[in-house]
């Protein structure tokens, strides 16, 4: 297992292909092999970063010059009880595996990400949220217990009431305290494979946020698309999607819609063009003018509100709808900037940010809004308010300007009492992290880190960036 540059240094990238780092890649199949990796790291003076599917938009699963432990090989579903909806899995199990396993029995994961390719270990490490965060919270709130292997070699069990401090720190702990070895989750009952979806337009940011707030209290899922290229009075306009579970008996064909093949996304577009080619056709529109055109067309085409039924998978996994969509952003990829703001300050702060990005000629090509509620996890990103995720195309020429824009965003968000999400933003500095988390939280997290990982074996590029001295 001795790392040598000839055979094991591997280029690893983030989800957006905007950043890469060379690492010694280890792919353990079981706990014993994880222990072996820790031993190698200790002997060679290397650090270890945990990696699932590598779907973080930043440097969370990268470790330049160190070991990356790719846990995708540990992907067995260990126990499933269709009566109680409890499932016990290894950390490399993906959301894809999870929903396909439980849906035919009438269950659905309580919280899912926008792509189903993520692993549960990664989902817990980042404490992901979905389009139902205001109602169901983060995925961590549905974890019954997990076992975790500490770098010290100790394997312990944590639950909300067992080692509660570690439980609340390891969920959302960026994989910096230990390696999840098994995870037990509670699934949610569903009576149909379909959701009722309603879509309608909102003309500007004020109504956008007002309607998310009122709409969220009435629906199970709520998500908004924001046209970040619209200026002036139309700034912050977009389209909202609200979705609801069907009640028992609402879907006469429930036995059919709960089947996996009913949910599976079609692999061709208009029944003809393979979807895997679609990103090539999107690429020419991935510039300021092209995106403005596409967004404007999308906005006016959606001006008539509509209601329809849609399969769970189609509604939730929008990012999987177009395979490799991120390649449309070109060679230098994309980054995503997500800010979480309290209800009171969101309108003013985002108005300022959207206008600033447009003035600098760096408009976001995709904006997504959601409604959130606070949670009890240590490194939480949640607030009682909203989030806005903005995708930016990275090019060789705009890198420096974009980094500057995002630093300005950080100041606006921190001043407005906002927070950030560690699986997305790539430019948050240690100083900014201390400001929004609070010195007290940083101190507590580092104390737990010393307890679980006294030799600092677990480190990632992200950790060094936001928790470095």
């Amino acid at each position, binding site marked *: 297992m001795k*790392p040598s540059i*000839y055979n094991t240094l591997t280029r690893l990238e*983030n989800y957006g292909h905007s950043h890469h780092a*060379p690492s010694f890649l280890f792919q353990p199949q079981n706990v014993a092999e994880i222990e072996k990796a820790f031993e190698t790291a200790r002997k060679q003076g290397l650090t270890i970063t945990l990696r699932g599917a590598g779907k973080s938009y930043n440097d969370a699963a990268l470790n330049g010059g160190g070991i990356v432990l790719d846990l995708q090989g540990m992907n067995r579903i260990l126990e499933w009880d269709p009566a109680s909806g409890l499932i016990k899995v290894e950390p490399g199990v993906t959301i894809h595996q999870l929903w396909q396993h439980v849906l035919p029995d009438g269950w659905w994961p309580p919280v899912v990400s926008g792509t189903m390719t993520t692993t549960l270990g990664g989902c817990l490490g980042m404490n992901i949220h979905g389009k139902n965060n205001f109602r169901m919270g983060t995925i961590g709130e549905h974890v019954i217990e997990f076992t975790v292997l500490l770098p010290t070699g100790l394997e312990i069990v944590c639950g909300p009431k067992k080692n509660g401090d570690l439980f609340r720190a390891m969920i959302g702990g960026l994989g910096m305290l230990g390696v999840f070895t098994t995870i037990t989750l509670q699934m949610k009952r569903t009576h149909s494979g379909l959701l009722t979806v309603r879509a309608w337009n909102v003309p500007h940011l004020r109504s956008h946020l007002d309607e998310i707030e009122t709409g969220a209290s009435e629906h199970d899922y709520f998500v908004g698309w924001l046209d970040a290229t619209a200026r002036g009075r139309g700034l912050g306009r977009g389209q909202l999607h609200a979705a609801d579970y069907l009640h028992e008996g609402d879907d006469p064909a429930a036995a059919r819609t709960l089947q996996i093949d009913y949910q599976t996304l079609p692999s061709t577009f208009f029944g003809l063009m393979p979807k895997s080619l679609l990103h090539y056709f999107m690429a020419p529109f991935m510039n300021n003018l092209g995106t403005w055109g596409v967004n404007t067309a999308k906005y006016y085409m959606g001006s008539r509100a509509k209601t329809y039924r849609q399969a769970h998978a189609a509604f939730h996994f929008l990012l999987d709808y177009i395979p490799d969509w991120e390649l449309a952003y070109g060679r230098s990829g994309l980054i995503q900037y997500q800010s979480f703001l309290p209800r009171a300050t969101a309108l003013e702060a985002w108005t300022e940010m959207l206008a600033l990005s447009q003035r600098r000629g760096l408009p976001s090509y995709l904006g997504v809004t959601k409604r959130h509620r606070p949670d009890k996890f240590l490194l939480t990103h949640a607030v009682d308010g909203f989030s806005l995720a903005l995708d930016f195309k990275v090019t060789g020429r705009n890198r*420096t300007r974009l*980094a500057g824009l995002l630093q300005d965003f950080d100041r606006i968000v921190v001043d407005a009492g906002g927070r950030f999400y560690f699986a997305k933003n790539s*430019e948050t*500095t240690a100083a900014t992290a201390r400001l929004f988390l609070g010195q007290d939280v940083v101190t507590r997290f580092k104390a737990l880190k010393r307890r679980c990982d006294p030799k600092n074996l677990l480190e990632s590029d992200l950790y060094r960036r936001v928790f470095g001295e």
Partner: protein
Amino acid sequence: MSKSTYPLPSRGTPLAPRRKAILVGASSGIGAALAHKLTRQGYTVALLARRADLLQALADEINHQHNEQRARIYVHDVLDHQAVPTLLNRILTDLGGLDLVIYNAGVNLPPEKGSTNVETDCQMAAVNYQGALAWLNPVATLFESLGAGQIVGISSVAGDRGRAGNPGYTSSKAALSCYLEALRNRLSSAGVHVLTVKPGFVDTEMLKAAKRAFWVIPPEKAAGDIYKAIQRRKQTIYTSARWGLVMLILRHIPSFVFRRLKFLA
């Protein structure tokens, strides 16, 4: 390995990463000037050379200037080929990645009258050329698999023609230039940039070996030219640039004429 009281530099952010470089042959001359130039531009660098005291003093000066550990030192003799893979791994881990490798190790041992000069010529071949093979072969493999990276070799105008004055030196640099061209041809499709630098007379220790020198430039000027060429991803540069024109003419003089031009050879 250097022990330093200065804080480690941050690795930057994904959009504005700190770049990392290895400088082989860093203790004096162009190497030392490049160390200053690169660290001023925000690079963190691994400095390699035989002479530990010079290396330490250089690193101390740089780290003191920036008040962080931008330079780390590794005492290394380029004749020790066996040590390279392990050392390269070590540096990669210490720096947290690698963007640029500059091979600057070089000696010029003028031939002595009444000697066959076998030993000195072989030593020049070993340092100037074989050392480059030992370093740049593994680096090329690494950069090729990563699909990124920049390689710079410091060759010489002397390598452009076989010159009567110092056959050992001129041929070692010719071999290096040819090797770098080959690397470029092999790696460019993988997104790896290879730069050949051909300095004329530079005011360094090596200048002592020159019988007569003109158009002498300070090493800082050479380092500035090299840095610019790295940024612009040039193939080959002469420093100073006027040597480009001179060598263009010299390269086209037929051999039977060239050997009669005693003042050039």
